[in-house]
């Protein structure tokens, strides 16, 4: 592979790999910006993946080739409802938010597998027939150099993910809703004295995180694994969590971090086919994405500052 070929391969792959991570990490941004720790992202992705696949299998005759997209909506709705568990526990019941997130992760896998076994009588679903496809983006694909890198063979889901990242940035930083949400995460009592309903904001934020993680899971399952089983979502939620922190709790930062992970991942796959690198024992390629991340963090990202009220339940009148 020439250098250009490597680029033409790596960039689209990185973006495609990143899409589920981007969405989930941005979900995390919403939740944590409102002050609610969400390590339940993994579980919420599981729900999304499960619903996406089930919906796709069930309604493929009704919706035809648009099934995967409709399934995203279904996954979003169900996962955001499921995230209410986390909201109720950590916002209303003042549960330790990490504990509640752990419970979400356990519960999601358990319920989904339980249902798969109940419905299909086996450990995983069938394969879905309609999946996401790559497209060339009209006209843009023709731009020299950039065209093949960014606009040929892209998934609409990647476009959605990047769109959501930009939208999330606008919402969080330029709308009243975003201002209030961030205020609730930084100084809930200040927000309370300004007449903002802290509890309601946090519920909404957690549900947004559920919805986005659900879409993320559904994209993953319908484009990559194409079925649902116990290992379908296998750490991606934690990677999304890492992307969120890496991105300093900012939607565009999360986007960048997720693409970085995708890039590192793609690099490790390309590596095997490059003459020099293929001499290196494969374990070094396998751990490359993770080592790169750590180096990046230690080298030039440095201290990340979480929202100030992150992890603390808001109790009216408490100082």
């Amino acid at each position, binding site marked *: 592979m020439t250098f250009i070929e490597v680029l033409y391969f790596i960039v689209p792959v990185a973006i495609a790999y990143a899409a589920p991570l981007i969405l989930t990490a941005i979900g995390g941004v919403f939740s944590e910006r409102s002050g609610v720790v969400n390590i339940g992202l993994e579980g919420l992705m599981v729900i999304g993946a499960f619903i996406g696949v089930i919906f796709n299998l069930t309604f493929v005759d009704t919706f035809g080739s648009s099934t995967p997209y409709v399934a995203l909506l279904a996954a979003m709705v169900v996962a955001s409802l499921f995230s209410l568990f986390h909201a109720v526990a950590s916002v209303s019941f003042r549960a330790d938010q990490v504990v509640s997130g752990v419970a979400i992760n356990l519960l999601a896998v358990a319920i989904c597998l339980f249902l798969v076994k109940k419905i299909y009588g086996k450990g995983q679903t069938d394969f879905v027939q309609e999946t996401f496809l790559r497209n060339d983006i009209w006209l843009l694909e023709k731009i020299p150099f950039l065209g093949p890198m960014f606009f040929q063979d892209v998934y609409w889901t990647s476009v959605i993910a990047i769109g959501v990242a930009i939208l999330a940035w*606008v919402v969080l930083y*330029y*709308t*009243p809703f975003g*201002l*209030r949400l*961030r*205020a609730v995460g*930084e*100084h809930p*009592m*200040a*927000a*309370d*004295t*300004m*007449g*903002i309903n802290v509890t309601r904001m946090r519920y909404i934020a957690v549900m947004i995180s559920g919805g986005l993680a659900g879409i993320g899971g559904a994209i993953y399952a319908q484009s990559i694994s194409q079925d649902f089983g116990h290992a379908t979502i296998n750490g991606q939620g934690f990677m999304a969590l890492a992307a969120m922190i890496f991105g300093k709790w900012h939607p565009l930062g999360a986007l960048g971090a997720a693409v970085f992970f995708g890039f590192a991942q793609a690099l490790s796959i390309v590596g095997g086919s490059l003459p020099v690198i293929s001499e290196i024992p494969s374990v070094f390629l396998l751990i490359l994405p993770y080592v790169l991340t750590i180096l990046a963090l230690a080298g030039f990202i440095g201290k990340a500052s979480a929202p*100030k009220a992150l992890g603390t339940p808001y109790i*009216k*009148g408490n*100082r």
Partner: protein
Amino acid sequence: MEHVIEMLNIRKEFGNFVANDNITLQLKKGEIHALLGENGAGKSTLMNVLFGLYQPEGGEIRVRGQEVKITDPNVANNLGIGMVHQHFMLVEDFTVTENIILGSEPTKGGMISVKRAAKKVQELSELYNLNVDPYAKIEDISVGMQQRVEILKTLYRGAEILIFDEPTASLTPQEITELMQIMRRLIEEGKSIILITHKLKEIMDVSDRVTVIRKGVGIGTVNTAETNPNDLADLMVGRHVEFKTIKGLAHPTTDVLEVKDLVVADYRGIEKVKGLNLHVRKGEIVGIAGIDGNGQTELIEAITGLRKAKSGQVFMNGQEITGNTPRKVTESGVGHIPQDRHKHGLILDFPLGHNIALQTYYTSPNSKNGFMDYSAISKKANEIIKKYDVRTQGDHELARALSGGNQQKAIIGREIDRDPDLLIAALPTRGLDVGAIEFIHQRLIEQRDKGKAVLLISFELDEVMNVSDRIAVIYDGQIVETLDPLQTNEQELGLLMAGQTKNDTQSNQVKEEDSSHV
């Protein structure tokens, strides 16, 4: 005379504890009404009830004659009630404008129209002479300006009735004067004000009437014109309090602390201490007077080892301690009452006893061969609790559960009990009532009389003038002047602190024999 607010027989309970026991407070239109009481008397609680943060167990509230139920701050806002809280309710990460518009943002096409908001903020700021930059970030502005942002918040919402809960606790004298002017201006514009403060002088200066509460019970309301500070204090505490700190003459001897050409940068790398010289001798209290942000924090942090100095030297009893770790500095004989008791002074979720052992936990008898002796710690803690009159349920209670005043007493007990050669006391009486302040000042003087050195950092002229034997004025990272408290006055101090030079101030000061080397 029209009452804009009437709080009648308000009762508020926390569990079995009665914080407000049938308190009545009536606010006339256009008056400044002071609310006075010791720490924990229930002032904030009463105001939080009025602002809708707490629901009372009994009593009624009338606003402009109408009985109302204030179920949450929104209701209060709509009734024209605004509150400036004891602890600022500001999001540090946001700009001034963002903080002000939060909750009622002007929008255009779904987006916040920051420009429009900032313009309105600017207008309000000009109307009331608040001098606030709408685009500045809260974390970058002074405490005084933060205070004014809090005021703007209420004005922005069209508040007619303003509650100020201890607004001056962390302001500099200049800022306090400005605030008083702002309050008067607000009254001129037809607003009414409830003011909570521990500073009797302020009450006498600015208020029209005073309501006093003691231990949750309303003692009564008096016209300011018909009372005086001594009566007010006695009324509040329920016994006679002495005002002027009683102390004999100082007999300073040799240098304990010596700071030479010290340069320190803050967390952002900006130099805050710029070649500072200072010395403190055995048997004297040196007060550092200055406006917040002139390098006091960085100076103390550099002396105590919490921050690395860029250059210069620090000596304790002749030994250089520059760049030493906090542990080594402490062991060289420094005691430190930190400026922020919740951040540095205490581990709020540790029991009080552990907190009292925070500087000595690793030494015998608290620790032997790497193992703790918690009974020794407990024994010592109880001694200190008793000696320093810390009101608590015992050394096992979490530090968090204590009131600010008692937390402070525990810290002071901890630091003084080690009998350090140098005691650094940074804002030791912030937010405390007169009784507690008196107690703490006495302890500092006691240390001096035992032949120890004391370095006092304070924003309050009263305190600096009363307690210190020597006043070092800090401005822009340097000690610009050293004064004898008996030979100076508040005006002169105030001007020096604001950056004027001694020649500007005209008044004649007796120079100390060694002031050149200070």
